[in-house]
């Protein structure tokens, strides 16, 4: 069984971004970039399926600039077998990425596509569901447990009131939540091995996908700052302030 995993290159989750002073966006120049943490969980899950003998091949895909090759090499260091870079310098919004992935799903015919539930830069939480709809596949978002048996996948999902389990016919799309697994650390030998794994580059044109913007960003601003608070010396003062100053209890 072939598994396709989509990975996005984003500003590292430990970096606090700054808004550009002209309001055109966030300044990402010279910031540390990493694989989106949820996508790392997606790659790890695919690799575990291969280690269990369920998956036979793992294809990692990334869409964006040539520098996404680094992200694909990381995916291959975790254990993906090969990479596909859909290279473009145009701004990619979730629906465009979903269209690119749909074209690759048609070409590669995976039984399972695993994606992170959201990217930590645009916080959109759209691509996996959009791919599922475009490819007419069933979906399980926010997965915390994935089991494969009998041509189906049974997925436990983190929902608002707790956990929900659904069963999907294959092929299917799964998006990962935090508790699905803990991604392994990539080792130096695996990083070296990943450099030799095949990486193919295609363009949106070759996939027959026209990239277009669905949203225009008019402005990006700093959020309203909270004014600095005070330290209170003890519990009694805290209670008194909450009652008489803040008046919330």
């Amino acid at each position: 069984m072939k598994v396709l995993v989509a990975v996005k290159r984003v500003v590292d989750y430990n970096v606090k971004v700054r808004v550009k002073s002209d309001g055109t966006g966030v300044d990402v120049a010279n910031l540390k970039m990493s694989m989106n943490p949820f996508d790392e969980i997606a790659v790890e899950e695919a690799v575990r399926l291969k280690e269990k003998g369920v998956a036979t091949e793992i294809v990692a895909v990334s869409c964006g600039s040539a520098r996404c090759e680094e992200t694909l090499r990381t995916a291959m260091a975790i254990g993906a077998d090969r990479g596909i870079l859909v290279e473009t310098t145009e701004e990619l919004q979730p629906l465009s990425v979903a269209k690119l992935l749909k074209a690759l799903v048609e070409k590669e015919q995976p039984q399972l596509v695993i994606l992170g539930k959201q990217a930590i830069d645009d916080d959109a939480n759209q691509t996996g569901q959009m791919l599922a709809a475009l490819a007419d596949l069933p979906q399980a978002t926010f997965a915390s447990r994935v089991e494969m048996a009998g041509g189906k996948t049974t997925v436990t999902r983190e929902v608002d009131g707790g956990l929900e389990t659904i069963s999907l016919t294959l092929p299917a799309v799964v998006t990962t939540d935090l508790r699905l697994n803990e991604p392994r650390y990539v080792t130096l030998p695996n990083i070296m091995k990943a450099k030799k794994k095949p990486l193919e580059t295609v363009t949106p044109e070759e996939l027959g996908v026209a990239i277009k913007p669905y949203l225009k960003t008019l402005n990006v601003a700093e959020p309203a700052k909270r004014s600095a608070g005070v330290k209170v010396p003890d519990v009694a003062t805290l209670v008194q302030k909450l009652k008489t100053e803040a008046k919330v209890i």
Partner: protein
Amino acid sequence: MTALIIAEHDNAGLKGATLNTVTAALACGGDVHVLVAGYNAGAAAKAVARVAGVSKVIHADSVSFAYGLAENVAAQVVALAGYYSHILFPATASGKSIAPRVAAVLDAAQISEVTRILGADTFERPIYAGNAIATVQSTTPRNVVTVRTTGFEPAAATGGSAVVEQIAPVPASGKSTFVGAELVKSDRPDLTAARIVVSGGRALGSSEKFSEVMTPLADKLGAAIGASRAAVDAGYAPNDLQVGQTGKIVAPQLYIAAGISGAIQHLAGMKDSKVIVAINKDPEAPIFSVADYGLEADLFAAVPALVEAL
């Protein structure tokens, strides 16, 4: 210009997030219709009809909607979409799962987690865990929106008298089936709608300590209980209590964080609270930078003392 809201409900009644979504839909500038796709959901449809500001309720009843499977509900929304300029969902687990399927099929812009509506095609939404606020304009005739409920007041649950129209449900996709659910039953207020939230972090040390320390405080204040990602990952609290960028977004009148250091991902989920109290023994904890009142103390002493003093 008319907006369609996809109601969040449990067939028997309406979930609160739907009310905030009605307020957002009214801000888009036209009439507001609400789809109730459910199974034996007549009571939920009637409840929606009473919500102030709703002019029509569309009720589609089928066993295939009983558990809100995304494939089936999205197909129903797409079947109705032709008429509408805006299709809005609350940004709940369910809304977030279904909305992108609808946007993709319609080739429409989706604007996720909208916190403010500036015009029929212009919206504000947080990006980078709330460290930046983007103003975006849609370029497509139809807009699919998920609404961050903390950005909008709830509409009045009574006072409206909308007509309820029954429609024939679309067929089920047959590709997904519901197996089961483990939903937490709680008498506490809903985390995302509570007036007071008390949250615990990794410093609690175990699930026993988490409930031993946090429960009396929540009981005393009539508060909902939340948790940091670290506490959930460590198994001290269930996943549905996680507050943060990728968990629940809350904005109560009072948020009390005990033993939470305050990673940016956690702050993203609670920094719009009206009053924030932080209890932490580390004077350098980042949570103090957003707290109105900081108490530098061991939570195992301070929280019980707080319960006592309240």
